[in-house]
């Protein structure tokens, strides 16, 4: 028996034996019968199960909204789990009152999760929530009743509500006991940093779990050997080194988007993230998980594949080794990764000065949807002559795909409409899309052309116009 899981559940400190792979959602609803948290889909797509996870950062606690249906309970170690049961004070909070006033709840099933996401946004933000912030908080939630107008209108009630933990407690928006959480967490955190030791049987290493649980949730829940990587020291964080950014593989998408170092390298990273998953998933999904998941359509994977990315792999028996991301994918869901190997760091070489980066994605629904095709281009020109180019695309091959021939063909060519059209045509000979639920092969081929065109139009708006591309293609 490993040592009991130790965390704070709302106001109470909990020490309990919890199966390693059990979901936070099941722990709440089944084990504890705290039923305010709802299950709507068990795949992170509806937000009915959203809870807040508070984690010490220095002396303060940082709260993030996450879907409890994709989070292993063991990751709660040393953290503060906040559920709707914590928000049952003698009066409604402003968020709660605003939802009632605006008619933002109809059947009420999605409502508890929404209350937590909006409360989380107030904890998170320093400035008053603008329309975009409210929409982002609502983004991971499906409400089938309202049409969202009434939920977006909650913002109109929040102008005078303070943000941050102390402010919210001071205004009576959160129970007073919240103030004591940072100190209580630090007492736990220092005593509890071990990760459970792997046992026999099918072993699962869970990073964010946002895809692994969707695909193998029942198996993980009953496995006796689940390792939660998020609690393992050294796997998180972003470090700037000369010539490269080094990411811990358990770095989340949101951490990636927030990092000034990453923004310096990939200026549009925040905008890209708005088309990737939802805030509740980005708070859990990890960069390493996205790479190792090997989905041919991984959004962050396609971006890192276009950059010069190298992985460090470690195992118990062998010396660490390094492998380039472009050599990592061997076939559909096949990796150059031994069963006992773990990605322990991700190094992204800093592109040479003057490089430009573009990332594109088209999905059926713009937000929280899997791409039909995504693509990235990293390139550099000198006086309009292409000196470096790396083009990648997802959804067009069995693996996240580096279009080596097209990339090579682009070298030493002028950035021109003709070059772009020819490159997009050449790309067609490199890819092998298939028809599936994300789109027909014909659609994916067309999309690839459109996205390649879009890269250049975005990066060189003065030289490349869509009108000229269409004219050129028609010739």
């Amino acid at each position, binding site marked *: 028996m490993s040592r009991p899981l130790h965390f704070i559940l709302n106001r109470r400190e909990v020490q309990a034996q919890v199966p390693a792979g059990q979901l936070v959602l099941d722990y709440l609803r089944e084990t504890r019968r705290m*039923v*305010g948290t*709802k299950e709507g889909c*068990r*795949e992170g797509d*509806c937000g*009915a199960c959203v809870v807040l996870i508070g984690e010490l950062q220095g002396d303060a606690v940082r709260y993030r909204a996450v879907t409890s249906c994709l989070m292993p309970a063991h990751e709660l170690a040393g953290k503060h789990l906040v559920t709707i049961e914590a*928000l*049952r004070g003698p009066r*409604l909070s402003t968020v*709660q009152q605003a*939802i*009632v006033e*605006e*008619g933002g*709840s*109809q*059947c*009420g*099933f999605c*409502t*508890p999760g929404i209350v937590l996401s909006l409360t989380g946004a107030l904890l998170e933000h320093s400035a008053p929530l603008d329309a975009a912030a409210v*929409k982002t908080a*609502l983004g991971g*939630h*499906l*409400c*089938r*009743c*309202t*049409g*969202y*107008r009434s*939920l977006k209108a909650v913002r109109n009630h929040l102008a005078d509500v303070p943000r941050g933990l102390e402010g919210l407690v001071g205004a009576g928006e959160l129970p007073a006991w919240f103030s004591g959480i940072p100190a209580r967490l630090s007492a736990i955190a220092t005593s509890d940093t071990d990760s459970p030791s792997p046992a026999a049987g099918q072993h699962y290493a869970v990073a964010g779990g946002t895809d692994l649980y969707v695909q193998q949730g*029942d198996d993980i829940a009953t496995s006796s050997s689940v390792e939660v990587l998020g609690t393992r020291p050294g796997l998180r964080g972003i470090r700037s080194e000369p010539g490269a950014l080094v990411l811990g593989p358990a770095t989340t998408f949101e951490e990636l988007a927030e990092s000034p170092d990453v923004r310096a390298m990939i200026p549009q990273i925040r905008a890209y993230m708005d088309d990737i998953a939802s805030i509740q998933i980005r708070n859990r999904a990890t960069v390493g998980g996205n790479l190792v998941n090997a989905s*041919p*359509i991984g959004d962050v994977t396609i971006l890192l594949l276009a950059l010069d990315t190298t992985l460090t792999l470690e195992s118990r028996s062998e010396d660490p080794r390094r492998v380039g991301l472009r050599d990592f994918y061997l076939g*559909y869901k096949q990796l150059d990764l031994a069963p006992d190997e773990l990605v322990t760091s991700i190094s992204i070489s800093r592109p040479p000065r003057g490089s430009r980066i573009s990332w*594109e994605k*088209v999905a*059926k*629904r*713009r*937000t929280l949807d*899997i791409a039909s095709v995504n693509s990235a281009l990293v390139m550099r020109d000198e006086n309009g002559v292409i000196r470096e180019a790396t083009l990648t695309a997802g959804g067009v*091959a069995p693996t996240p795909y580096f279009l080596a021939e097209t990339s090579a063909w682009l070298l030493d060519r002028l950035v021109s409409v003709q070059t772009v059209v020819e490159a997009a045509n050449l790309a067609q000979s490199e890819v092998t899309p*298939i*028809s*599936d*639920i994300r789109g*027909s092969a*014909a*659609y994916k*081929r067309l*999309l690839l052309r*459109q*996205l390649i065109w879009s890269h250049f*139009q975005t990066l060189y708006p003065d030289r490349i116009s*869509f*009108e000229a591309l269409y004219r050129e293609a028609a010739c």
Partner: protein
Amino acid sequence: MLKNIDGALHVRGEAEFVDDELRPSNLAFGCVFGSPVAHARVRSLDISAARRAPGVLAVILAKDLPGTNEVGPIIHDEPLLAEDLVRYVGHPLALVIADTAAQAREAARRVRVELDELPPILDPRAAFDSGEIIGATRTFAIGRPDAAWPDCRHVVEGRCDIGGQEHVYLETQRARATPLENGRIRVLTSTQSPYAAQKHIAQVLGLHNNQIEVEVRRLGGGFGGKEDQATHWACFAAVGARIAGVPVEVVLRRDEDFRHTGKRHPYSADFRLGADADGRIVVFEARHFQNAGAAADLSPGVLERTLYHGTGSYRVPNAKLFAASCRTNLPPNTAFRGFGGPQGMFVIESALASLADSMRVPRENLQALNLISPGDVFPYGQVVEDRRTRRTWDAVTKKVDLAGLRQRVDAFNATHFALKKGFAVMPVTFGISFTTTFLNQAGALVHVYTDGSVSVTTGGVEMGQGLTTNIAAIVSRALGVQPERIRVENTNTTRVANMSPSAASSTTLLNGNAALAAALEIGERLKLVARRETGSAAKAEVEIRDEEVRIDGRPTGLDWQALVSATYLSRTDLSAHGFFATPDIHFDKRKETGRPFAYHAGGTAVTEVTMDCVRGRYSIDAVHIVHDIGRPLNRVIDLGQVEGALAQGLGWMTVEDLRYDDSGHLMSRNLASYKVPDAFFMPDVLEVDFLEDADEKLGPFGNKAVGEPPLMYGIGVFFALRYAMKAFAPRAEIPFAAPLTPERVLLGMHPEALDSAEVDPEALGPAAHS
């Protein structure tokens, strides 16, 4: 104004759903084993391994059912558990009861079935050609549809293919059944139709209705998906409880709900429209092929409403509308907000779009020209009685400055290459009443307790539509007391009997009026006592307002509490049962004419979109609506119904893309692959105005039914997107195929991509690398 009466419970997470109830220690769980293929004869079913699995209490097959194995609501063609023939993927074959839900699921995986596969039929036209037709085909006709064609200057014809829609109620199907003394069963479930659940549980268990108690607290959304199809899951829980002898809960996971339950019906249709030189409709013909799935379910009723709304909001002097319900090997399709009406309206709107293309005139001009007026007759014989459709059209087109909007859109499109805007007007005229006339009845039970508090039970179900709040408002107003005094009880078959489903937009209309009748009856008794207590004359006018008795308008100091006490002490009944049946409705199915609807409800919407024509992505920029709500009963709730229905309509027309593979397996089988509108998808400009001066005499309190009609505003987005597509690719042929997904949009504007494609884009293989 009264907000949602359960709002505080919702936001505190205290609102209880079926599986939130306290669990008895011996609660067991059920899981269904369903057919792995779409069509097959069952050679053998081996449940021995499942029986031996850990925690299993029972594995139940059709032969184990004590009563009749039948749950079809209209036609008796649907067994609860399949026997020798399976007709769709997921068709239930066995029910496993175990100590935990995980054990039940694990055991269900151990059921072995040997099948002789039969070819599945998935397409309604193919089913029709094979004679797989459910019930009778139907034809509505008016005027001289066959003789009118020579009078036409313009004739267009075409085809529509309309996708289905998954309900995505956030709360999946679920029920908990508890065995009671004397063989009775109590079932707590999430159904729009408690009586249907009661009746069918009694049938499959071989019991009487009075041995089954069905209770419904609230639904986490229904939208039609729990009108008939919640029955099955309530039956499974009850059968499990009966046979295993312990309380049994059945809760579907999302993927199970996707797999086992029916959806909005896909349709395929042919149309032909003839118009005079000005574009006035002379004659319209349509043939609707409904994809009913593997059993009748409610399909005949849905089919009927397709015909009722087959001419939309337009005057069609000569019409012939044919419709057939076609049996296929999909899960039985079922009620979904709009109930066949949306599909009918889509076809006439497509025909008008086609006519506008052909005549090279703005589509909205033809819509306006042909809009119904008083005295016009629908093909089913009902006469248009008011100008409300026109009034809403005028109000909203004035608000958005329709002519100016077209100019702005065209000017934008002329100056932008890759971005194009589009817009469309969508009028909706939707008949209110169950088209099965006898269902238009409701009962309610009102008690006033001696402390002045009030208990109300109706046959209606709270599913998020705000019924509870509406009922409380109606009763408080009728009795003259504060809404806080009113407790609206769970719906329960022992308190109100034989209730119709909460459906057809009529739940407040029927149950509100029934509750009103009961409250008024108690009110009359109270007034008799009030006269006596105040020593007033027999003809004095008594009114209870703000919890105080007024005689001839003057306050008396006799308050509600004292009046109720006096009434009780005088041995006067403080309870009443109320009943309501919609007056003046009838329909003759042999002649296919009558007055099936109490009235029509609807309005007009204008939808604006922007399309990124290079990437095939689009956004809905704005929807403006003027809606006829009668007199709002509760603005917040009425508004919520309009906006929520619109969202579902927009989703149905755009991103909600149900796909089955060639073997009948659902490919869009979870929320990762089936996308519904989210906060980003919905327009930031969503303005709904209610039509002024529009009281509806049937009420209650001047209010009109609102649940379904606004869904059909969503149809406008299809034509707005089509407008933008045509601005980019004027010569492209854009089929009337919904939903208009980003894929269809991009390929529609780049038809050459299909010519050069190596593979047929419609031949979608199994989902592989995603």
